[in-house]
């Protein structure tokens, strides 16, 4: 790999042992992918919480702190596994909660800005066309590449953290023009009137193309999609297909004009969308857990939920969770949306994602939850290892299920 004089200085330990180790690790990853050099990044978004890191990750972070690791570029954190205001009520393990506090304090000492959000692209930082960043969660990466035209690979926690310490990342994958071109087309003939419908599109396209380097080109849609719609589409594509980029003709900045070079064509109409909803087993019919999370809710999503839950109550014995970040929650509280949801019996969790909640499997057993209903195709996909039977439903249907206790 070609290294600049600055990179050679980092490798020589002139910027500290933490940066030296980080760059060594990045070079190893870059070699695997055939990267010829590293590219400077202007922003890092990293996943780091006790649920994903475990004791091993925590010990690693302590070692980094001893080495006086320090971010060289602005770095923010993804959604985490504990909302300290709710951890006791949720029955989260106090020892793990203490470790979560330690992780947050340690990251802050290293100059990480603990935003605890997976919707940084809606609320914190919007990179511009061509800007190189090192982001993780996958939903943030696909949004950055597709909607902003910024450039990032999926950067796992250790990889994003390394990028924070060195201010660069190996140049492979979506940093390169050659991987950013569309590889197949998808004609959207369906109306896609609910966020869950956009997730369903992501599921259909993603499941059929499980390949990081597959880049769908959406076209034929007759309305301008909203940011939240693109967010659910992207999150689902990344989740089901491991994809990091899509194009949307007339919407995203790098979308091709001529689609004739794309040999594979997929068409999604109403029938295909309905087939997604009818594909879920209702299991034992349990309708006591409804979740709006994965990604965290934006302010418009909070507003819509408040409208749907207005003067209604969650069915006795059922639970409904909404997750969002601190910024959105502050505004949603000021605007009365949070109050409306809480009056209905909804639990709003801040700075977390439902699927990475510490102790989720135990929570499921204790509450005897068998099914999880959500309007997020992503969370419906990823929560399986916790042994939930999951069901995707449209937003208003989810609210109806939460309030009636009847699963349809």
């Amino acid at each position, binding site marked *: 790999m070609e290294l600049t004089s600055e990179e050679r200085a980092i490798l020589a330990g002139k910027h500290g042992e933490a940066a030296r180790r980080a760059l060594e690790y990045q070079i190893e*990853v870059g070699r*695997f992918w055939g990267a010829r050099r590293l590219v400077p990044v202007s922003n890092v978004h990293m996943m780091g919480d006790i649920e994903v890191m475990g004791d091993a990750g925590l010990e690693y972070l302590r070692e980094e702190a001893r080495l006086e690791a320090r971010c060289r570029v602005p770095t923010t954190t993804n959604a985490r596994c504990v909302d300290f205001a709710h951890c006791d009520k949720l029955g989260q393990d106090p020892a793990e909660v203490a470790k979560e506090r330690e992780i947050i304090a340690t990251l802050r000492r290293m100059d990480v800005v603990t935003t605890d959000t997976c919707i940084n692209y809606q609320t914190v930082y919007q990179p511009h066309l061509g800007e190189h960043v090192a982001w993780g*969660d996958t939903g943030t990466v696909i949004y950055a590449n597709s909607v902003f035209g910024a450039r990032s690979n999926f950067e796992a926690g250790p990889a994003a953290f390394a990028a924070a310490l060195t201010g660069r990342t190996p140049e492979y994958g979506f940093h390169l023009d050659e991987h950013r071109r569309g590889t197949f087309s998808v004609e959207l003939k369906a109306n896609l009137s609910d966020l869950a419908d956009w997730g369903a599109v992501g599921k259909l396209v993603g499941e059929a193309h*499980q390949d*990081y380097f597959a880049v769908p080109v959406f076209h034929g849609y007759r309305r301008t999609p909203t940011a939240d719609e693109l967010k659910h589409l992207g999150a689902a594509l990344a*989740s089901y297909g491991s994809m990091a980029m899509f194009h949307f003709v007339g919407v995203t900045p790098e979308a091709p004009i001529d689609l004739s070079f794309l040999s594979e064509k997929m068409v999604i109409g109403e029938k295909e969308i309905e087939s997604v909803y009818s594909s879920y087993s209702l299991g034992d019919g349990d309708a006591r857990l409804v979740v709006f999370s994965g990604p965290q809710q934006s302010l418009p999503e909070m507003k819509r939920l408040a409208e749907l839950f207005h003067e209604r109550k969650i069915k006795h014995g059922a639970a409904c969770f909404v997750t969002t970040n601190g910024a959105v929650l502050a505004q949603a509280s000021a605007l009365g949306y949070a109050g409306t949801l809480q009056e209905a019996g909804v639990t709003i969790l801040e700075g977390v994602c439902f699927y990475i909640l510490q102790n989720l499997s135990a929570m499921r057993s204790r509450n005897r939850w068998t099914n999880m209903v959500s309007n997020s195709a992503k969370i419906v*996909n990823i929560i399986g290892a916790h*042994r939930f039977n999951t069901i995707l439903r449209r937003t208003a249907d989810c609210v109806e299920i939460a309030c009636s206790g009847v699963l349809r």
Partner: protein
Amino acid sequence: MKFLSVEKAYGPTVEGEALVSEEGFSPRYDLDRWSGLITRPGHRLEGASIVDKVCFFPSAKGGIAAGWAFYDIKWKKIAPKAFIFGVTNPVMVQGAVFAGIPITAGWTPHPREVVKTGDWVRVDPGRRLVEVMRAGSR
């Protein structure tokens, strides 16, 4: 000797028992990270253990969290010996390199033609080879 050529590879040479999957893998979506068992309902290897195995997966699924997960399972001593992927994504590679677990991507021929679950295999990242040393007992 039967063997696979792989396109990309990282890590030292290791040997172990093969676990061959027809379905892709995520340590977050599919795996119980305390036992090393694949627990996602409906996964084609549901109930199988990845501990100390050389795992063959056609594809990688989803998630950023996998990067920490490999280090976590290595620490808990429930990691596989190696990951052999058909197509993979950066997270799997970043996670495996971070944990020091050998990983390869891209294969010729398809493993179903040369290796079965239970076979003893050697993964040689330096030579970009996965060799079947002997057939399993079943």
